[in-house]
């Protein structure tokens, strides 16, 4: 175990997989432009390349290189930049295997940061994993800790399917204990971050930290919250969530996305079907308000989920607070 920042854990995983497997490539914009780059030094310009600002070419080339037997990791910086190349992500990479009747596989990783709600304003702050979650053939990972950042990236690179790997910008420098050497976090296995019998809080990505803080505050009021971090949205570990709800009878979901564009809604709908009989109260979602993210800090804060809003939602489902829609 070593304590390193979240972003270093991601890089460690890419580095480790590149050492392990010659077929792993790493390319994208604004990486490895100088000779001092450590990836370039370690793996050379065949496997590590800076690309032009051409996401469609970048992701399309990743598809082609994957079809031809490689395992590309594409550095995209911000998740929204995938939007200019969305067809490759949604309608190409995850479909080739299927349409060819299993003749090919398309192992690639799209590394994309999201949710940079630090004054990045309307076009760079989106939490858009919800758009990818339901795409058949595409895996979606959303690490919330440095250890998972490493373990999910390593698993993503070894997975034979295309993976959209979303790291949260506000976690970039967040330190955490990370296992040394090989560390794989399996896809489809949620982490129970905190146990509790009164309410289940399913929190996504960066929201896990907020939910943990809210849970501590609630504990001070005698409410024991179980905090679940699904870690991957596809596959989704619904089982762990259902088991928790069976125990607690109450569910609050926390997602930085806007409500109708959230992944939390999709999870809530699954629980409203398969976990209905466990539920003692409405399923509440704490999400961003239905708005583009504003630049100015007080307005930005108003739009986003917060510890207060999580505590409020828990109190609501437990009948401890007046219900205000």
């Amino acid at each position: 175990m070593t304590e390193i920042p979240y972003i270093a854990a991601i890089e460690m995983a890419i580095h480790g997989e590149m050492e392990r497997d010659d077929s792993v490539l790493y390319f994208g914009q604004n990486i490895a432009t100088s000779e001092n780059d450590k990836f370039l030094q370690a793996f050379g310009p065949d496997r590590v390349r800076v690309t032009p600002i051409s996401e469609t070419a970048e992701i399309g080339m990743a598809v082609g290189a994957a079809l031809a037997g490689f395992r590309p990791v594409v550095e995209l910086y911000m998740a929204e930049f995938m939007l200019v190349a969305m067809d490759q992500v949604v309608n190409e990479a995850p479909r080739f295997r299927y349409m060819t009747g299993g003749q090919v596989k398309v192992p690639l990783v799209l590394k994309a940061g999201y949710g940079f709600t630090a004054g990045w304003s309307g076009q760079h702050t989106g939490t858009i994993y919800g758009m990818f979650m339901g795409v058949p053939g595409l895996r979606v990972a959303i690490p919330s800790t440095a250890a998972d950042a490493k373990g999910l990236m390593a698993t993503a690179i070894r997975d034979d399917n295309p993976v959209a790997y979303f790291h949260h910008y506000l976690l970039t420098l967040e330190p955490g204990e990370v296992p040394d050497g090989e560390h794989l976090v399996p896809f489809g296995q949620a982490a129970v971050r905190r146990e509790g019998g009164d309410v289940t809080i399913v929190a996504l990505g960066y929201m896990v930290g907020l939910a943990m803080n809210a849970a501590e505050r609630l504990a001070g009021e005698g409410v024991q919250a179980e905090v679940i971090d699904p870690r991957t949205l596809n596959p989704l570990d619904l089982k762990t969530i259902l088991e928790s709800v069976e125990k607690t009878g109450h569910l609050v979901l926390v997602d930085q996305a806007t409500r109708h564009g959230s992944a939390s809604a999709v999870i809530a709908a699954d629980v409203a079907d398969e976990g209905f009989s466990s539920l003692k109260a409405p399923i509440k979602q704490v999400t961003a308000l239905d708005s583009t993210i504003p630049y100015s800090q007080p307005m930005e804060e108003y739009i986003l989920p917060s510890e207060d809003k999580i505590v409020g939602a828990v109190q609501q489902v437990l009948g401890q607070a007046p219900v205000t829609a």
Partner: protein
Amino acid sequence: MKQLDNDRLVWMFTQMARVREFEERVKRTFEEHPGVIRGHTHLADGAEASIVGSLATLEPQDQLMTTYRCHGYPIVLGTDTKAMMAEIYGKKTGLCGGYGGSMHLTDVERGFLGTSGIVAQGIPQATGAAYAAQIRKENQVVLCFFGDGASKQGAFSESLNVASLWKLPIVYVMENNSYNVVTRVEQEDANAAAGEPLAVKAKAFSMPGETVDGGDPVAVYETVGAAVDRARSGEGPTLVESKVYRLSAHGNIIAPPGVPLHFPEHEAIEVFGNADEYEAAKKGDPVPRFRARLVQDEVLSAEQADEIMQAARDEMQAAVDFGIESDFPEPAEATKYVYA
């Protein structure tokens, strides 16, 4: 680039005949077996010379990617035409098990990595395969086929820039058939509107651009062959504009179930009322044109040519029969290949 000896010329004619006959049988299926072909089907008739001339330049280790107009290439590569027809008929014996259909024929073992039905999206994919070829260092070249329309899609220019910058071993073959569905190239392309060849686009990427008569398989072979040689020797990509004329409409009509599907008349006639253009193209049909040349040059006798045509007809009759007689896949197999 190897010289084309007589055997090779006969081989080229044979492949052109096979592609033509396959496409004829696909088209006839709409009348002979209504309802068997679903969705959207695009034919290569008229482009045979371009396809065969291009693929004749390849070595066994080479690869290619194409568009949804994809029937011609695997035939030339040696893919079983029975499996191809069965795929177009949605049968479990199909090349892709009935998962893909007409637009997505793929034969990875023969280097045909697949197609995209989304215009131009195969261009970066082929470019990625060329990147893979470059770093694998096994002397591979990738051919990337696409239409004139596709060159108006951002994916085209993004890819050609990278390919030129990285000197990737790839040849971009634009099959310019003067149409994007019902739109004429002058209506959508600034070069065409200005009277320039579309190959001029290569200049934007500091890359060579060539225009060739796509109705002449030997000319195509020479032009694409020079580009393949260039690519193989590490000098980078070339854009080849191969001028063809598709002899069928863009695809079968687009209609919901219940309305019988068929191929309408070519857009020159149907949309623009320009039968002359179409008739002129028919007169230049590359298949009889190449046959006449080979017969005249005494590479083939008329009888041998007829035999080749007859063999193609027999082969494709067998493909149709096989496709019709094959079973459908089990419904529950539908979720089999969603994930690897």
